[in-house]
């Protein structure tokens, strides 16, 4: 395995929100921009011809202002949002051709996700939250309890197993979110502005936790952020989105010093 193995390949991906998305798609392919499309078809251009290769065991950062399509893009990777047109290959498998059943399997085994607003289950304890991904795969209770406890320990929340999310601080809640995502042992981790809701000190602490874990686990991580410092700190590659289009995808130094170099 060479270190530049591509795990996820996004090809010519378009997403248009609106009723008449097929007609709009043709207009966009013909070169129409976001504002003009909104005026003419009352359709919102979410993603415009995205091509992205994500390398195995690396942290791919996707940056952009709010409304640039970052969150839309990451939700295409596990098909929480269906694309208007395009192709997404994971391990050379076209995930858009998966049936509903196969998609559920795929989500259970291959990808897990960490959310900006944590999205923990308020009625479940920390232990039940972390074990959720395993419990719905019908893994026996004693087994998922044990595996969940291991991850709770790994993110430093020992002793909080029986607490409800509402009883924890923001930083602790996101650790639960992270542990929940790691507990399924999925190879790919999607992180949608996972640390944006945290205050700067906690955020920096969480970034360190993530980097420590990554040194050990070598996951393929897609990390969405709007914070340049965060992107530079954790990204192996940084892609930049603007108005739904990919502006740049390169290693962090190039991003920082500009494309002229």
């Amino acid at each position, binding site marked *: 395995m060479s270190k530049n193995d591509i795990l996820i390949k996004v090809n010519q991906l378009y997403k248009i929100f609106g009723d008449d998305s097929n007609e709009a798609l043709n207009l966009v392919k013909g070169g129409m921009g976001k504002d003009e499309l909104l005026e003419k078809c009352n359709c919102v251009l979410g993603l415009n011809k995205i091509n992205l290769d994500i390398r195995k065991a690396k942290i791919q950062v996707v940056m952009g202002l709010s409304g640039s399509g970052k969150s839309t893009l990451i939700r295409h990777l596990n098909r*929480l949002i269906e694309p208007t047109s395009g192709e997404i290959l994971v391990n050379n498998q076209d995930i858009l051709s998966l049936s509903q059943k196969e998609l559920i399997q795929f*989500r259970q085994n291959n990808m*897990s*996700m960490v959310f900006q607003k944590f*999205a923990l289950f*308020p009625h479940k304890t920390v232990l039940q939250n972390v074990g959720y991904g395993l419990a*719905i795969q019908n893994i026996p209770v004693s087994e998922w309890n044990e595996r969940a406890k291991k991850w709770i320990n790994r993110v430093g929340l020992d002793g909080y197993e029986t607490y409800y999310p509402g*009883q924890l601080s923001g930083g602790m809640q996101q650790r639960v979110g992270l542990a929940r995502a790691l507990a399924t042992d999925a190879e790919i981790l999607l992180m949608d502005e996972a640390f944006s809701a945290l205050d700067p000190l906690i955020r920096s602490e969480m970034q360190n936790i993530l980097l420590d874990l990554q040194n050990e686990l070598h996951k393929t991580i897609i990390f969405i952020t709007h914070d340049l410092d965060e992107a530079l700190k954790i990204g192996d590659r940084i892609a930049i989105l603007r108005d739904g289009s990919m502006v740049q995808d390169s290693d962090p130094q190039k991003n920082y010093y500009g494309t002229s170099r």
Partner: protein
Amino acid sequence: MDWFFNFPSMERNDLREFKKSVDFTFTDFTRSYGADIEGFFEPLLMFLVWFEKFFINTPWPLIILMILVFAWFGSRSISVLVGTLISFLTIGYFGMWEDTMSTLAIILVATFLCISIGIPMGIAMARSNKIQALVVPILDIMQTIPSFVYLIPVVMLLGIGKVPGLIAVCIYAIPPIVRLTNLGIRLVDKDVLEASDSFGANYWQKLFGVQMPLALPTIFAGVNQTIMMALAMVVIASMIGVKGLGLPVLRAISNQYLALGLMNGLAIVVLAIIFDRVTQKFGLRMQKYRNDGKD
């Protein structure tokens, strides 16, 4: 200019014919299918009769004990418990024990029926906007049409007795549970559902693992309302032959017995308050995860 001042209505003869044809059609329908429909409800009647007998024939101390256990399980509150005990002792002392037991039986069966039909209906409504668009107007009709109007066809079809009474109570009492189940499920946080999706939960896992538990306090408010509305119907149900606290009230109205009406009316109120407090406290306890601090 006559049409301008007098509404151009249907000819009197035509109108009479129209009403007649509706009436006769329904009478024919009743004649041909009444027995079958009655047979369909036979198990329900048997259950209701058995349940009522159980309440009436069990010695009163045991019944009070059962009610206290239920009140404690629901509310975990000493004051509710004491209030319940005093209320039932008073009801018994004033000679309304048997009627109260009959009312209790029909209320419980009606609530059980409403929950077992209403919750699946609410779930279906929450799942599909089309079903919601179809069911909401029906619920509107059920809630606003005067109860006497649907008593007519029910009595024509099933005669006078417990089952038509039960059906009338259910028609009146089922809308809140359906509406609030639908509302509760629809109000579940979209982010949480997305998280559940992202881990590969299927429809049933999402429904029973995430949506229903989070909607439970709202659904329970619906159960509470359903019980209250069922109790409000007991007097009207007694007009078509349901025994219980409603019957003496009806007698009191026609004979102007103030004391009799007041006593039985207050007994209904007391039942309502007990049910309300117990179910409300239970609903609150189900949301304890929403509060800070460990339990």
